[in-house]
């Protein structure tokens, strides 16, 4: 800029180098330490950046389960120990961490609490190194459903996209029939999850209520800060109902902006991810009443004593109620405990045999059941709570909880797998 600057002479300045070294060292402090005795679980997930909540919430859930088990004296005379490392959201980093856990830290099990992209990569490490891996966050159906993709070493305690869509279509179909919602709209994030989820939702809506048309679809990019243009377009087109699988900070921003336009007063809104405690907790001005939401984990969803205890214990320890991710990681540790107990060892091959078809009591079970089951053939947890509800403005913010019976979910799922050639 200034007309008479000359070439830098500062390139060799030593403080830049010092600072870099200091930075690297400070990162390294966060790495775990090694001890021989306990049963070690290596947890890998994104714990920094804007989806840090994925990993942070998962780690909290796993740690709570471990503390509870250890307080009772552990399992087969050994205590659990959780190692956590940040994948920074990069698959290659997640793979490196997972390998490190196995080779250097000699963990007994891996727990993968990351999003699908990383999860697919970590799963391959489990196949390669024959290390039992619990998947606690990735919801992509293919991860367990596609025989070519799933591995004998990985198990999933996370909700699956296909179940979510089946239940969503079932529920929305009922409401649409009742209220005569004919013109539909969608606004979902512009990446694989958003497109797959929305397409499947409408597919299952059609099964339950064939009499509707989609008059418009919008695909804002993920982490879009401003939805005003989308909102005014929807208002202009005047649909009867809008479906959205925006999640996290995106759905809250959308709801704030749409509220200012009075959108929710003019049409029905079906947001599959609204009821997540993080979303409801973030809405400081209260939750707009009368929206339909997927039944995300909530202290009253499922409304059972076991769930209430879990939620309150979590809050006592961390100050906030758990989210889906905590609940799924918590359940994963419960499964490991039960399987190790049954196998009498941490030997992975034996634990895997014990896990297949294992049924345990868990706070996440969908009423009227009190148990969840790890399906033997595809290593997917079933019978977890997956319903829909309507929002109210007071805590616990949801009411009219509706569950689709699991027998029906499994029937629809079987048909879907057959269609895909995955059965």
């Amino acid at each position, binding site marked *: *800029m200034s007309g008479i600057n000359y070439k830098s002479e500062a390139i060799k300045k030593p403080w830049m180098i010092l600072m870099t070294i200091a930075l690297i060292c400070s990162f390294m402090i966060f790495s775990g330490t090694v001890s021989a005795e306990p049963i070690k679980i290596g947890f890998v997930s994104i714990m920094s950046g804007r989806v840090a909540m994925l990993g942070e919430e998962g780690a909290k859930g796993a740690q709570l389960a471990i503390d509870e088990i250890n307080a009772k004296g552990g399992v087969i005379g050994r205590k659990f120990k959780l190692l956590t490392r940040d994948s920074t959201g990069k698959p290659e980093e997640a793979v490196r961490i997972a390998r490190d856990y196995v080779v250097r830290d000699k963990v007994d099990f891996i727990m993968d609490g990351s999003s699908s992209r990383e999860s697919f990569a970590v799963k391959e490490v489990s196949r390669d190194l024959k290390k039992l891996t619990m998947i606690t966050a990735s919801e992509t159906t293919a991860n367990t459903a596609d025989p070519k993709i799933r591995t004998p070493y990985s198990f999933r305690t996370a909700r699956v996209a296909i179940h979510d869509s089946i239940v969503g279509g079932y529920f929305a179909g009922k409401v649409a029939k009742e209220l005569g919602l004919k013109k539909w709209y969608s606004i979902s994030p512009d990446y694989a999850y958003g497109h797959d989820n929305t397409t499947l939702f409408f597919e299952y809506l059609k099964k339950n209520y064939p009499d509707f048309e989609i008059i418009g679809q919008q695909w804002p990019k993920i982490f879009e*800060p401003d939805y005003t*243009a989308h909102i005014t377009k929807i208002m202009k087109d005047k649909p009867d109902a809008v479906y959205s699988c925006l999640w996290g900070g995106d759905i809250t921003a959308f709801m704030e902006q749409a509220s200012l336009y*009075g959108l929710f007063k003019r049409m029905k809104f079906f947001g599959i991810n609204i009821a997540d405690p993080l979303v409801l907790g973030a809405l400081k001005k209260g939750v707009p009443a009368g929206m339909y939401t997927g039944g995300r984990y909530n202290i009253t969803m499922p409304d059972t004593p076991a769930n209430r205890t879990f939620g309150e214990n979590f809050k006592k320890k961390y100050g906030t109620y758990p989210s889906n991710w905590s609940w799924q990681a918590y359940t994963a540790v419960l499964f490991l405990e039960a399987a190790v107990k049954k196998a009498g060892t941490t030997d992975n091959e034996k634990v895997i045999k014990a896990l297949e078809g294992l049924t345990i009591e868990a706070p996440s079970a969908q009423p009227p059941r009190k148990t969840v089951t790890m399906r033997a053939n595809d290593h997917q947890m079933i019978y977890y709570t997956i319903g829909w509800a309507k929002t109210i403005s007071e805590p616990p913010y949801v009411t009219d909880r509706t569950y689709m019976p699991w027998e029906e979910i499994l029937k629809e799922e079987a048909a879907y797998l057959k269609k895909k050639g995955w059965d």
Partner: protein
Amino acid sequence: MDLSSLIECFGDPGCLINQTTSALIFAMLLFLIASGLSLIFGVLGVMNFAHGSLYMLGAYLTYTLYVGTSSFSLAIILGCLGMGVFGVFFERVFFKPIYTMHILYQLLLTYAFILILDDVAKLIWGYEFITMGAPDAFQRPPLELAGSFIPTYYIFVIAVGIMVAVLLWMFLRKTKYGKLIRATAHSSEMVMALGKNTSVVYAGVFGLGAMLAGLGGALAAPIRSIFPGMGSDVVIDCFIVVVVGGMGSIPGAFLAAILIGFMRAFGIIGFPMVEEALIFILMAVVLIVRPQGFFGRAET
């Protein structure tokens, strides 16, 4: 492409007003942040990649002040001033040593600060996203005009944005300090040789830039999600504004921000699915046809 919808919208006053408001609200917030970035680049000659983080901190600060004082106007004012002070401190401590360094070092440092400030925000406010919600004064049904809807808060934001643009322009054009800033942008050495302490100008400009980013954050806080990393996406749009408008030019930034706002708002109707790409196409075209941007001076 859906050109018939676009034509239909142009014929419908409700649609026109709706999309225009939505263009302006986006444009004003973008302008506030980008003008600070452009100013800092114009005068200090440093591309501050961490500028989006200042916007993020402004949003967090305003949120905290709003929770503490329950007064939105107080929160905006204190939030802005707080960011100004932070900017001055930031410039003196971290930026001052890098002016004479190679651009790669500047890039490295400002990029590092994106990560550092994100983590600082995470430590202070937590990793969960926060939604502040529009202040009570604006919690009312939108105005209805010819079948369009205009939220009152948006009118407020658009008014503040235009006011700041005019004030900023007048400040730089008409006042002694504004002229000093423009002179420093051209040659800080010459300004120094005329007996003016350019360090003060640098710190002041950075403070002003941080204040503008902070104001952007403050005004965005009620309507956008606040979370660590919220600045990273915004900063990309800001760079486009700075490039398209001309580096260092405030009127250029204003015009570019408005243009981008309109391309988005009407792109969503006429070119759904690719409205994001339109903005990058705009940048590419400007870079080919007029590399110095709308109001930039060509390098000689």
